[in-house]
């Protein structure tokens, strides 16, 4: 009986789990560079140079970067451009009001964005950032000329586009096409819709009817970099930037894991002592 109940529960959870996922562009796992000081420093450089123009990281002081191996001198000479002090908070250069006027939404503070964008028991915020920064495509229908797969119709333009180089994108989607006189189901015909965005953002759409298709609604996206070397280097840069933003969201994360090992070792020993102590008292109890 209990087994049956547990089985039923497992089924419910499996079914609802499938229900919960789905929809949205699949996120790619960000490379783990959280322990790579060079990557974190490069990420910090990219962050200060590109992101901080519009966004802030108001919980971060510049001199917190000493935790990732930079010196006060290095911070002063290569990361402070407009007379800030090393003890200052990382504030963006534009006002919230201007941001709202120019992009339709105030650029969010990025201090803890890598944590905020995580999903319950799902992909981490780092995966989101890594995917988001690599799925911009030119789209002339947008006010900024840019669109994004991870965040459709985003207000932010592709600030890093020169580092990535021009790309073309092809999106292939299967649509269930309910022909006249037919309901949805087995007899419905399917269409394959291929949308291509060229490097300038102009799109062309090709529609084909497909017979004998038994899959579900699916979308597949392919990017074709016109400068593959630059695009590959960009992927690595974004991985660095993602690592930095992941670190920035919780600068203490590596420290806490390091201390945690010792804490658990101590508690393990403490448990054994407590267990034996308990046993020695209780052995006389009949």
């Amino acid at each position, binding site marked *: 009986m209990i087994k049956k109940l547990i089985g039923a529960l497992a089924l*419910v959870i499996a079914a609802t789990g499938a229900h919960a996922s789905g929809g949205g562009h699949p996120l790619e796992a960000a490379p783990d560079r959280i322990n790579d000081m060079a990557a974190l420093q490069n990420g910090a450089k990219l962050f200060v140079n590109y992101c901080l123009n519009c966004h802030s990281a108001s919980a971060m*002081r510049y001199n917190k970067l000493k935790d990732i191996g930079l010196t006060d001198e290095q911070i002063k000479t290569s990361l402070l451009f407009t007379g800030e002090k090393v003890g200052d908070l990382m504030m963006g250069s534009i006002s919230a009001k201007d941001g709202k006027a120019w992009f339709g939404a105030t650029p969010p503070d990025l201090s803890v964005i890598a944590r905020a964008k995580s*999903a*319950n028991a799902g992909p981490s915020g780092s995966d989101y950032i890594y995917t988001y920064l690599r799925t911009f495509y030119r789209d002339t229908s947008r006010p900024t000329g840019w669109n994004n797969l991870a965040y459709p119709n985003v207000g932010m333009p592709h600030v890093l586009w020169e580092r990535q180089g021009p790309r073309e994108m092809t999106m292939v989607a299967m649509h269930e096409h309910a022909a006249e006189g037919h309901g949805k189901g087995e007899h419905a015909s399917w269409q394959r819709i291929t949308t291509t965005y060229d490097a300038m953002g102009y799109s062309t759409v090709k529609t084909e009817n497909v017979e004998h298709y038994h899959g579900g609604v699916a979308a597949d996206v392919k990017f074709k970099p016109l400068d593959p070397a630059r695009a590959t280097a960009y992927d690595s840069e974004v991985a660095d930037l993602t690592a930095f933003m992941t670190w920035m969201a919780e600068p203490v994360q590596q420290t806490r894991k390091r201390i945690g090992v010792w804490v*658990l070792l101590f508690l393990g020993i403490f448990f054994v002592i*407590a267990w034996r*102590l308990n046993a020695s008292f209780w052995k006389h109890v009949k």
Partner: protein
Amino acid sequence: MAGDKTVETTGLLGWIDRRFPLTSTYKAHLSEYYAPKNFNFWYFFGSLALIVLVMQIVTGIFLVMHYKPDAQFAFQSVEYIMREVPGGWFIRYMHSTGASMFFVVVYLHMVRALIYGSYRKPRELIWIFGVGIFLCLMAEAFFGYLLPWGQMSFWGAQVIVNLFSAIPFIGPELSIWIRGDYVVSDATLNRFFSFHVIAIPLVLLGLVAAHVVALHEVGSNNPDGVDIKAKKDKYGRPLDGIPFHPYYTVHDIMGLAGFLIIFMAIVFFGPEMGGYFLEFNNFIPADPLKTPPHIAPVWYFTPFYSMLRATTDDFTWVLSGLSVLAAIVMFFRHKGLVKIVSAVILIVVAVLLRAIDAKFWGVVAMGGAVVLLFFLPWLDYSPVKSIRYRPGWHKVLYGIFFVNFLILGYLGTQPPSAVFNLMSQIGTLIYLGFFFLMPIWSTLGTFKPVPDRVTFHAH
């Protein structure tokens, strides 16, 4: 005159004992407080709850030193604690993990009471104080959750306070009075801070004291549900009892060590607990103009939240129908005044269920699900206390109840959908049915004979 009392102790201890009941209190509550010797795993959670309470108070004191209860600065001050206060991250994670683990421990403590009948005579008051503690804990968690001033803090509070507006006539004014504003705002944050750090903790501590005093008056129940005071040795000590100190103090230290391993593993390696202990959306500062697409309370509220959402307009038809059915049953099963009064009340409830907005009944279902627990000692009519001596199908029933509670909890974390809503409606009926029908089912079946002495296997 102070100092004239005759005591056995001498020296400093004697001096104190003549003025303060130190030795006698120590004996009455520790060294000569006899607890049943057959406690099992389930009996760790009482002392663990006390320890978590102390941890919450101590970490809370340190958090208050750095936190700013101001809508302008609250979110930033939490990040300031995380980054710039030495060890602040540890204190904060202890507190956030402690909040969730408090509920884990208290839920398990309640499961223990349910399965071993610890709420039965003469322990009704212990149980009532305990349910009071549970209510305080929910209030404490709710008020505390607003303080980080993230999106979930803000919108969670907004949703819950809005529930009060469903109360007929006084609702809208009441919810404004609670918030101190038309929306959750700085005024709300300030008063919730006050409730969280002083008002509720005071009540909580009082109830905990009452809970322990009541427990020590009648003594603990045990997994066999046997009264150990019935069989005593020539010194008047229960044969199956054992002094709390040192036997259960060393035992509880072992339990604490095991608990701390789990607790610290969460604090140091996964303080967000996959988004269930620290919700990811709460890392976005509160924005009154941007409603999140999916607002879910923290996991420990979700079973009750499911019952709230389950109570739709359609569902009040079901509840109303069941109320009429209950009226008919009461009318034919009982005699005299009980028969008339109960049937009339149930019919009135059935009518009101349709006359008042379903939103109100959702609130009643959610609150009632907790309040119902107060009445448990008078709902259970079974001749034995412990589940060990109940019929096999009673065990199945308890199993269904607990699994159902977990499913309701899961459903409460998910965005609403037709299937999930139906499931939570069934779950709500199972939850309510378990208690409302308990006077009937708890007497049915073949009960096993309860032994005179507890079952104990020497270590």
